[in-house]
């Protein structure tokens, strides 16, 4: 079985959406805590972040949403946020409070593996990563390794990036941990193709877009992605 990770931006209705996603076949939820200047994100997630901030989703409120989500689903939950949020809250304090609220791990896309190494988190590697950096990230990562499929920011793309295949085999050479591919995966066929190369996929922008239309639209997307993944195995 391949793993399906679904990204949702923290909003008041996220716990219900997360539940719908899990019922439709999501294996893990990545929960975005919005930041005003999200460098790794394309327009879709950036705009979702702007809306979340306008709706008052500051760090303390995001932690509440995390706890509410934890009460409804029992899959791994991973807050995804930026260094500035940690710097303001306190690095150790936010890790402690996030884990207390039910986080399984953390994802910080503007924090390379050698910066704040004491923060246990899922590390990201990219097509540009050198062998040395792949090894550094694989050794430091918490549970699985996040393969960024493209040189680029988040956002749906028409095709699965050709850069994933070489990255996946280079990563496989340095670790036995699960490899999940994310950035640009939005459809069942992408999920199927990515799953041939990795142990699972992360779906961000497409999930955020579907979630904005409600639980039914999100469940439909997750069902399609699930079918794409299961088709492969």
């Amino acid at each position, binding site marked *: 079985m391949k793993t399906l990770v679904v990204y949702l931006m923290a909003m008041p209705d996220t716990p219900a959406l997360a539940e719908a996603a899990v019922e439709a076949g999501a294996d893990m939820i990545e929960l975005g805590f919005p*930041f*005003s*200047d999200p*460098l*790794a994100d*394309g327009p879709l997630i*950036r*705009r979702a972040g*702007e809306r979340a*901030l306008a709706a008052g989703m*500051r*760090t303390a409120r995001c932690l509440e949403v995390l706890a509410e989500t934890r009460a409804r689903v029992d899959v791994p939950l991973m807050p995804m946020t*930026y*260094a*500035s*949020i*940690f*710097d*303001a*809250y306190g690095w150790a304090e936010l890790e402690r409070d996030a884990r207390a609220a039910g986080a399984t791990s953390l994802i910080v*896309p*503007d*924090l*390379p*593996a050698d*910066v704040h190494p004491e923060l246990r988190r899922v*590390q*990201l*590697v*990219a*097509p*540009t*990563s*050198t062998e040395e*950096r792949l090894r550094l*990230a694989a050794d430091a990562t918490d549970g699985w390794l996040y393969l*960024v499929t*493209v*040189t*680029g*920011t988040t956002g749906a793309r028409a095709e699965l990036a050709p850069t994933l295949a070489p990255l996946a085999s280079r990563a496989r050479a340095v670790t036995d941990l699960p490899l999940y591919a994310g950035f640009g995966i939005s459809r069942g066929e992408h999920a199927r193709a990515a799953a041939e190369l990795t142990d699972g996929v992360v779906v961000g922008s497409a999930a955020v877009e579907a979630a904005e239309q409600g639980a039914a639209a999100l469940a439909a997307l997750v069902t399609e992605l699930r079918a794409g993944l299961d088709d492969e195995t």
Partner: protein
Amino acid sequence: MSATRTFGDYGGRYVPETLIPALDELEQAWTSLRDDASFQAELEELRNSYAGRPTPITLAPRFAPGQRVYLKREDLMHTGAHKLNNALGQVLIAQRLGKRRIIAETGAGQHGVATATVCARFGLECIVYMGSEDIRRQAPNVERMGLLGAEVRPVDFGTRTLKEATSEAIRDWIANVETTHYVIGSCVGPAPYPELVRELQRVIGREAREQFLAAEGRLPEAVVACVGGGSNAIGMFYDFIGDDGVRLIGVEAAGAASLGSGRGGVLHGARSSLLADADGQIMDAHSISAGLDYPGVGPEHAWLRDTGRAEYVACTDDEAVAAFHRLCETEGIVPALESSHALARALDCGDELVLVCLSGRGDKDLAEVLRREHE
């Protein structure tokens, strides 16, 4: 010798992993080129024969009666601001790295013009990100960039100013890092940029220190520069840091005082002093001057503030506009609105012998100043 990655608790590299190899490559290139005689000779030749260096210092007796205020005339350099010092150096480095696509962000448009200029000179593709609010208030520079063959990409979300333009430039770099060099316009961003930009702007203070000694037979009591991201200020200050008796005064826009009223935080790849709220969300800056309208500042300035070696003061829009007019009328020099902030505080800093960085000329600001006065 390795490049400086942090200044006390500030600086560092808070960027997606995708960029790390490019930053390593830039750091290595810079570490070897800074001591490379042929590179330095090429840069020096371009500074002299193309950019118009050295720029003079000018005594401003009618502007500042009762003081001896000297202006370091970066406004006289080609393209009309200090920004060309940095763009020239970085494009030379990009060429050595084999990168033929150049991107930049710009606020006032001076850095965009400088980068577009050097790209035209070397036949490189140039794309400049600029907030739509800045495109409105700095229209002449947008037209200049077009003439120089650069593509100006409007950034139409968030603050629509320098902060968002910088974020979009970084996103472009993430997507095109293998072919592209990002010419960041100030001493901000992930390491090695703050140090690299400082070293390229140091020519301002190196020249000015010698010129001041030649003119006055002693060092100034105070050196004053405006601070947006902080590049003209760090370039001006750096060679005076060891001169204990010399006050270093950085002047921020009152509505963009990242050092005066900021807090520690992370923006655009570095930890520094920022306008941010208690949650680490970056706040909007406000300044009449597009080049100072930025909620962050170079990490080395945050460190110079904390160590006490430099002091940072504020200047309001009205005070800057008054100093702008005063320099026009008393000395026949039209300063940039950015530099006008430094001029205002030079007058009331309490010292007699003062050196001010006149970082740029004000042609780009005429429409904005006149519009404001007609309102």
